[in-house]
Every structure is written in structure tokens, then in C-alpha cells.
């Protein structure tokens, strides 16, 4: 992928991120922070690739750490977000 294309993707993604988050009520700030924290857990995918393609011992060690950390990001992010949003689930359903 050439740099310009990456730039376009970054620009569009940034635009999307901003649009998606504007006009969010303050009470959702923390859950959203947590939710987006979970989403960047996608780094796990990269970490797996790194570890999966690791050849030297150092690479393996660092790769292992990367996967471990990323997995923590993913699972912890999910659990915490889910717990915080529980409250909205019930409220939202109550509303109907």
C-alpha cells in the first residue's frame, strides 16, 4: 500500500471517528472511552502475526509479550465495557 492511499484511509477513518463520536452525551464518555479502548485491542491481530512469523528468540519473546498484552487489552476492554453498558441495556429495554 502506498503512503498516499494510507493517508486517505487515515483521513477517512479519522473523519468517521470524529463524526461517530460528536454529539455524545457526557454520561457515555467513560463507556465510550472503554469501548474504543477495546477496539484498539485489534492490535492483537498484529501481535499474533508478529509472533506467528517470529524467527529469532528475541522476536519470539517480544512477540509473546505483544500477544499477551494485546489479549489483555481485548478481554479486559470487553469485560469492563460490557459491565458499564449493562446499565444502559436494562434502561434501554425499559423504555420500550
Amino acid at each position, binding site marked *: 500500500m502506498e503512503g498516499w492511499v494510507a493517508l486517505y484511509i487515515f483521513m477517512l477513518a479519522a473523519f468517521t471517528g470524529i463524526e461517530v463520536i460528536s454529539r455524545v452525551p457526557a454520561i457515555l464518555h467513560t463507556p465510550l472511552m472503554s469501548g474504543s479502548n477495546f477496539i484498539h485491542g*485489534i492490535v492483537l491481530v498484529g501481535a499474533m502475526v508478529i509472533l506467528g512469523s517470529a524467527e529469532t528468540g528475541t522476536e519470539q519473546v517480544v512477540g509473546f509479550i505483544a*500477544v499477551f498484552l494485546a489479549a489483555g487489552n481485548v478481554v479486559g476492554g470487553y469485560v469492563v465495557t460490557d459491565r458499564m453498558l449493562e446499565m444502559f441495556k436494562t434502561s434501554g429495554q425499559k423504555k420500550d
Partner: protein
Amino acid sequence: MIPGIDFIVPAAYFLAAVMFIYGLKAMGSPVTAHRGILFAGIAMLIAVLVTFVHPMVHGNYGLMIAAIAIGSIAAWWTGKRVAMTDMPQMIALYNGMGGGAAAAIATVELLKVIGGHELDTTTTVMAVAGGIIGAIAFSGSLIAFAKLQGWMRKTWRFGGQQIVNMLFFAATIVMGVMIIINGPDPLLLTLFLVTALIAGILITVPIGGADMPVVISLYNALTGLAVGFEGYVLQNPAMMIAGIVVGAAGTMLTQLMAKAMNRPLSNVLFSGFGKADEDGPAGDVSGDMKSIDATDAAIQMAYADKVIIVPGYGMAVGQAQHKIWELTELLTQRGVKVVFAIHPVAGRMPGHMNVLLAEAGVPYDLIYDLEDINAQFPTTDVALVIGANDVVNPAARKDPSSPIFGMPILDVDKARNTIVIKRGQGTGFSGIENLLFFEDNTRMLYGDAQKMAQALISGVKSLD
């Protein structure tokens, strides 16, 4: 034709990226928020599963599974166990882990260069940038975690602290540039990473607990950015998009949060040292007045089961009665039970509140007397006090030296949450301080009664 791995993997990533965006969007509204995290969760599962068959993955499966298992279980266990009030530090922790992972990826990529692998400039730049950012987010988040968790009570400060921070930060950048231009060597790489980590620590240490949520949000955005950059390095568009979307959304969020605290972001990060702890809204000196903004107050009421509105002279002065009734109607439509409690001496003439509520068209059967309503406060989610002061002052019950001691009051302090609308620090007719405003479950919504009522209306409406 059966699609091959080289179709399935990118297709799965693509799907995951779409679902991430959709999920994040859904999390932006209380109604769909829970659905949002579910969606994002599924996307993550897809992306992770498909990575096992990624063309570049060709070994170390055992290690991989072990690492995932250890990380997951640890995170699961801590995440489930932690108290709701401790959530912010957990977010910091998990976020730091993400940042660390990004930095680790950068490290491996740069190690590969040392090992002879060729990288084009753009990729190197991305790897280095992601590395710095990831490392700072990692160490900074861990400090934030430690502070919030209470493991690190003191906020170290010394003269010239900012200059030292700057130096460390600059050193990291310089080493990064050197890596890009001259290529990495083991020492430089190590130094580079260590400096970045120290920079993260130094930046975070002096920031007070009250400002932590903003800082965590910032590190969250940074991790997103780092992940996005490493995504480019690994030519993985799903990582790029998810990372940058989070980076942008997180930046936006950080700004919103700083705004909600009425402080510019720069103030939080650089100049606000020390002050924050004393007067910030999260400072936990019992006896602080804690303010709230109208949107949050509106959401609290919108998702309540029962709200009691206590009008006082301030409602009359602000002529807010019509707006208050509009708010009541809105809440009632959402299924919230809303009633009015009138204190016998609210206002400045007998029946003052009745006159106004009648003018606004509030039906009589929603209006309760003190004797009839006081027992209901403990089961009330939100008591909304509008420009009342003396008539809700618990000093009448608690402080024998108070001139109003013995006067029956509306026990709003016994409600689960109390929101008080008033313009500022003005006292009521009796001219005495009100203990209610310092209660733990009281939040002050400062502003003119009418304007704030309007803001609450807008807030509730924005939830539809």
C-alpha cells in the same frame, strides 16, 4: 469456486473493520450502546480467529495460544472482579497493555531490520512513530492505573519538571529520527524504547487524580494511533482503520471530557499541576460542592424510575415553571414517574409555588405536600431541586444551632441522587449555608432556573 485464504483473511478483516465502526457508532447513544459493544466483540472474534490462518503466520501457535490465554484470563479475572467505581483505572491498565503491544510490534519490526530485512522509509516512520506513541501510552497508562488504584499516593513535583519532561520527549524523537535515517541498531533501539517509557512516566506522574479520566482518554487515543500506524507497518487495513478511528474518536472524546470539566486540555496536561487535586470534581474531600452539567443531569433523570421535583423561590424568580412542566411531560412520556413536592414556605408568599405550577398547567394530582412526600425520598432516584434552598436544608434536622433548626424540611438529601439548580453561591431567605449542597449524592447544576430547565429538556430530547 471456494474462496481461498487470500480472500477469506482480507474479507474477514474488512468485515471486522465495518463492524468496529458500526459498533463504535452504536456506543454513542444510550439506547444502542450495549448492542455496540456486542457488535465490536463479534468483530474482534472474527478478526482474531482468521489471523490464525493469516498467510504470514506460520508457527509458534503454542506460544500464541498460551500468551492469549494468560492475557485473557488475567484480564477477565481482574475485569470481572473490580468494583464499578474502580473502572477508570482498569481502563487505564488495559489500554496500557494495548499500547505496550503496539510498541512491541514496532520493536520486532525494527529488530527485523537489524536482522537484515529491508523497510521503505514510510514504513519505518510509521513503525517508529507507533513505537514512541505506544511506549508512552504504555508507561503513562500504568502510572495512571497506579495512581488511581492508590498504589502511588504522592504526586511528585519538582522545579523545572516540565523542562525535564520536554528533554526526555525530545530525546525520544531524536533517537526515532536517527533510527529512521541511519537504521536501527540494538543499543539505539533499546535506548529509544527506554526513553519513551520514561517520558510516559514523567508526563503522568505530576497529574492529579481528578484529571486522570481525561489523561486516560488521551492515552487511549494515543494507543489507537499507535495501533493504526503499526497496522500500516503490517499492511493490515483492519488495524489501520480500527486504530485511527479510535485515535480520532478518542481525541474528540478527550476534548469533550476536558470541556465537560470546564478546563482546556492543555491546562490538564501541562499547567494544571497541583490545583486539580484540590478543586476538581473528582476530588474526594468530603464536603465539596460537586457540579454536574445539564446533559448528565438529564440522562440521570431520563433513566430514573422516579423523580421528585422540588421548586423554590428561584423557580419563581427564573419564571421556569413552564419549562419545568415541559420537562416533566417529557420524562413522563419516557416512563419516569415524576411528581412535585411543595414545601409549605417555599417561595415568598403562601401558595407561591401553587400559583406558578397552576399557571404552567401542572395537574393537582402531581403535587404533594411535605408530609405526604417525605417518606418517598429514600426510594427516589433523583430529587431535582429548582431554586429552593432553605426548605431543603438538612441543617433544620441536623444542626441545633441553626436558626431553622426544627423546621420541617423536604428530605431531598435522602434521595439516591439530588440535583440542585441555582445560579451560584447565593443563600436563601434565611441567609444560611445549606448542608445539602455538600452531600455526597448532591450535584449542583449552576445556572438560571429557566435556562437550566431548558437545557435539561434538550438533554432528555437528545436521547431519542
